[in-house]
């Protein structure tokens, strides 16, 4: 039985008609058209589906969309301010923290969550905040470097 629900994503309300077993990741990608969050494993073990819910990094693939009514959901598409990249996004580009880019949205959201809570993280704290986000390309070095470069600016 489908249910009509309203989800707040990046500050905008979206009305969707969904079955209860649909995950937040599926609804974001297939109903709302936000394909930034990715499905790397579907089991919460790779972090490529990381989004923020009420400021906390969570795995969208292991979250039921229907349980997200009334929550503030943020995805990678909401990081930039219009056409302007946020300092965090800029830093990822400038520091070579991107290779294939598939982990990047999840990494950005985990980093954003970290900086919201701890604007001046040490390198070890950055690595820990990213410890649920798998990257096969970069070896994490330049991702950590990019975040360290903006530590201090939680935008």
């Amino acid at each position, binding site marked *: 039985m489908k249910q009509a629900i309203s989800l707040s994503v990046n500050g905008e309300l979206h009305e969707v008609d969904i079955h209860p077993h649909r995950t937040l990741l599926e609804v974001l990608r297939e109903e709302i058209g936000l394909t930034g969050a990715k499905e790397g494993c579907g089991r919460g*073990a790779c972090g490529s589906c990381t989004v923020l819910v009420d400021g906390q990094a969570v795995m969208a693939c292991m979250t*039921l969309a229907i349980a997200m009514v009334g929550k503030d959901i943020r995805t990678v598409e909401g990081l930039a301010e219009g056409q302007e990249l946020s300092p965090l996004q800029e830093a990822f580009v400038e520091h070579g923290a991107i290779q294939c880019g598939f982990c990047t949205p999840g990494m950005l959201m985990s980093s954003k969550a970290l900086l919201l809570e701890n604007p001046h993280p040490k390198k070890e704290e950055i690595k820990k905040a990213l410890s649920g986000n798998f990257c096969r390309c970069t070896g994490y070095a330049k991702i950590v470097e990019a975040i360290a470069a903006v530590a201090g600016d939680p935008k």
Partner: protein
Amino acid sequence: MKSFRYISANTVQEAVALLKDYKGNVKLIAGGTDLLGVLKDRILPGYPEVLIDIKTISGLGDIEEDAEGLRIGALVKLADLAKSPLVRKRCNVLAEAAEAVASPQIRNMGTIGGNICQDVRCCYYRYPDQIGGRILCLRKGGQKCFAVQGDNRYHAIFGRDACLAVCPSDTAIALSALDARIKIASTNGDRVIPFNDFYRTRGNVLEADDIVTEIQVDQVPDRAKQKFTKVRSRKSLDFAIASIASIVTVEDGICKDARVALGAVASRPIRAAKAEQAIKGEAIDILTAGRAAEAAIIDAAPLSRNAYKVEVIKTLVKRAILS
């Protein structure tokens, strides 16, 4: 995943009543980090008709202190447990255990109630119903435990129970050492039982209409040294090869009290009672620590590939005592 009906409960009474009504055909969902994996992989022959979301029940997500210690709501997130000043002050070993679970995202989603109730992680049990079909092992009512002759490196070294899968919960090990209590609600009312009685040889004591509502922990005396250590192949998103929660009180070099719980070695947390006895009242040195370590594993019956866990446990016990 396959579909189900979704009901969000507003009170504990509502939730237990629904559990009774849909007996056997229903699952509770809190954080969902274990349940949704089980459902997506269809590891079990049955599939719930209904999911009851208990995140919407207020009053189960708080940490409160009283004269004895803390009352921790079952819905307290692992991340909140890990950074709670109250938990760090009163029973830091629990904060350390919560911090060691999985990944930041899963700690943000997962609850302490879910963590202690989670299903086992044996790779045969967890094999998805894809590509060859689910594995119908002994735990699921099949004929055979595949770990006996298969890859049992992560399985039990204590207890030749029919199922060799270990209790995967990190917080459970800390709660065992803390001699915590667990409050369970049902349609027949509430009851509080010792945490060390929570697990059975397979699963836990929860009946069909039971819900864990609260964990009660007595404060650890300031003079005790408490620590949780998790040995694992990689530093995040990994279950323990072996773990230990220890609360040891040493005064003037003599052990006054010792509580040591071992993790990932059996279907439940194992209180290393013989090790505790070996050092209580003794002077703490390398020799007594060594004797305690030997006592801790005296009943170990390793499988074909996990004898190394015995060595790891000995190391953990020694270090816990000497630290």
